[in-house]
């Protein structure tokens, strides 16, 4: 991955004093162009993360305590269940993403551009309901008597909202919501990757006698593999952050149906706002931030997906 970019940066650094005037001018201009963004990146990106890191390693009084906050939050009776919930949720959600998003993308890629564009737009539309709106919509969908899926709910034996939302259903319900609001964007990306496949590759497959199904599975699928990886890693990192869905269900039901610490982020906010322990909250948010950083690092340094120089 270390290609021309680092090379040229190194050179500029070494030969700084003898650079031509034009280059130096350009260098100063560079700082001016990126300056505002860098300040904001520090202000609302790096600094808060650094402050959370400091809180996570100190006591309420500001004394350095090493990993005490991490160990204590780990031993909180809600800590492991929260991560188990997230794991169940992601097992369902990521499987659905891989199977359905790829399947749908491969299918609509064979349709005429206009039809395919219409479908992509329809699938993307629920993105407008991301966040709390989607949660409310799905509360309606899961309330027997009110839901347009009433027939399905009754067939499953659910007569009340409480019955639809029994604890073992929650990972499925949250996966449904996440899929409804989020899968459309991934269909766009995967479809974009498919349209990037050179035409001659597909023509060659056709000449060799491959049918649409074989072309999809043997030719297209291997060529978009890295995009599937991208989707999985980004979705994994995002999934660990689940908050709005369980929090709203919890609020709506006085914490009876869904605990106010169902997901790790909920646990962190409970510790911050109900227990007034910012240091514990910071420790959990650092746990989650580390997961996100590992995912980001994997994508940047281990895959060749993102172009840099």
């Amino acid at each position: 991955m270390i290609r021309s970019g680092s090379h040229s940066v190194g050179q500029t650094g070494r030969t700084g004093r003898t650079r031509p005037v034009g280059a130096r001018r350009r260098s100063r201009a560079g700082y001016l162009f990126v300056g505002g963004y860098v300040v904001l990146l520090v202000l609302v990106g790096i600094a808060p993360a650094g402050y959370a890191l400091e809180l996570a390693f100190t006591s309420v009084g500001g004394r350095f305590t090493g990993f005490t906050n991490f160990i204590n939050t780990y031993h909180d009776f809600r800590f492991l269940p929260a991560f188990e919930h997230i794991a169940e949720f992601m097992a369902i959600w990521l499987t659905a993403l891989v199977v359905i998003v790829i399947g749908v993308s491969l299918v609509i890629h064979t349709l005429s551009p206009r039809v395919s564009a219409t479908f992509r737009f329809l699938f993307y539309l629920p993105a407008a309901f991301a966040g709390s709106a989607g949660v409310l919509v799905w509360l309606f969908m899961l309330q027997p008597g009110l839901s347009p899926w009433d027939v399905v709910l009754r067939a499953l034996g659910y007569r009340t909202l409480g019955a639809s939302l029994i604890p073992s259903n929650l990972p499925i319900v949250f996966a449904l919501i996440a899929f409804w609001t989020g899968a459309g964007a991934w269909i766009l990306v995967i479809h974009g990757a498919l349209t990037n496949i050179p035409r001659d590759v597909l023509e060659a497959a056709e000449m060799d006698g491959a049918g649409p199904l074989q072309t999809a599975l043997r030719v297209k699928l291997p060529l978009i593999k890295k995009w599937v990886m991208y989707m999985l890693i980004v979705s994994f990192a995002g999934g660990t952050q689940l908050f709005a869905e369980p929090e709203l269900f919890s609020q709506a039901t006085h914490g009876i149906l869904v605990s106010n610490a169902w997901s790790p982020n909920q646990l962190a906010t409970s510790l911050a706002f109900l227990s007034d322990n910012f240091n514990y909250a910071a420790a959990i948010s650092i746990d989650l931030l580390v997961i996100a950083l590992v995912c980001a690092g994997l994508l940047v340094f281990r895959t060749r997906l993102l172009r840099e120089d």
Partner: protein
Amino acid sequence: MASTERLANQRWRTPSRLAVWAMLAVIGVFFVVPIVWLLLKPFDVGQTFTWLGNSVLYSGAGVLVAVVLGIPAGYGIATTEFVGRRPLLIGTMIAMLIPSNALALPLFLGANAFHLLDSPLAVILPYGLFPFGVYIAYLFYDTPRVHVLLAAARVDGCTEWQAFRRVVLPLSAPIIGLIVVLDFIASWTNYFLPWVMYGVFDTSGRYPLSLGIAQQLMPGSTSGDFYQNIQLQLAMPPSAEALLLLLSAAPVILVLLVAQRWIVSGRLQGVFN
């Protein structure tokens, strides 16, 4: 980067398009507002419009910051050479891959330490940080076409700023449009960040629509003690609640319709090499 090239080569007729849409929006507001008001009349209309106004303020200002800082930043990384350029590029890529929720609580802790919790800036500035926008701007500007144009402008004696302002910026409408759309959708639908900043109850009057509509789910929105008995019981009838939901989704749908050309026609592919 053939597809970003195509993006750049697109003929840009959006000023007139925007004018048409703006006119339609104004007329639409005239037709729709009385009806919405009537329908919401029994349910605290004032609050709904406060939420809507807050959402417009936060997302609008956030998007403005994202464009004003992000476009020059992406351009600077793509076309100028400076110490720390490559670490900044890598840092931007990492930052754009970190889910925005991951920073909500750290941002709250920071805002709390600086007594910024009641300020609109507590959400506007985080919305304004859009590393993905910087990255796609970098991809957009790091093309042979832009480099050739720039070299010509420099030969003609343009300063770096003039070259950017007069030569490159006029070509930038597609990338600006893409950043506006993506950052707008992300900030308009954000729930976690305003929630940590403005609290469980709207005591400060700072709630955006995403939090306001969720207020309908405050304690009391369900009845029943044991979980099997719990039923949904909203303060407003489902029809009014549904209207509120549509009101919150409408701007995003509108943006999607206007920006279909960029998003749905698969142009996002250009973003990813």
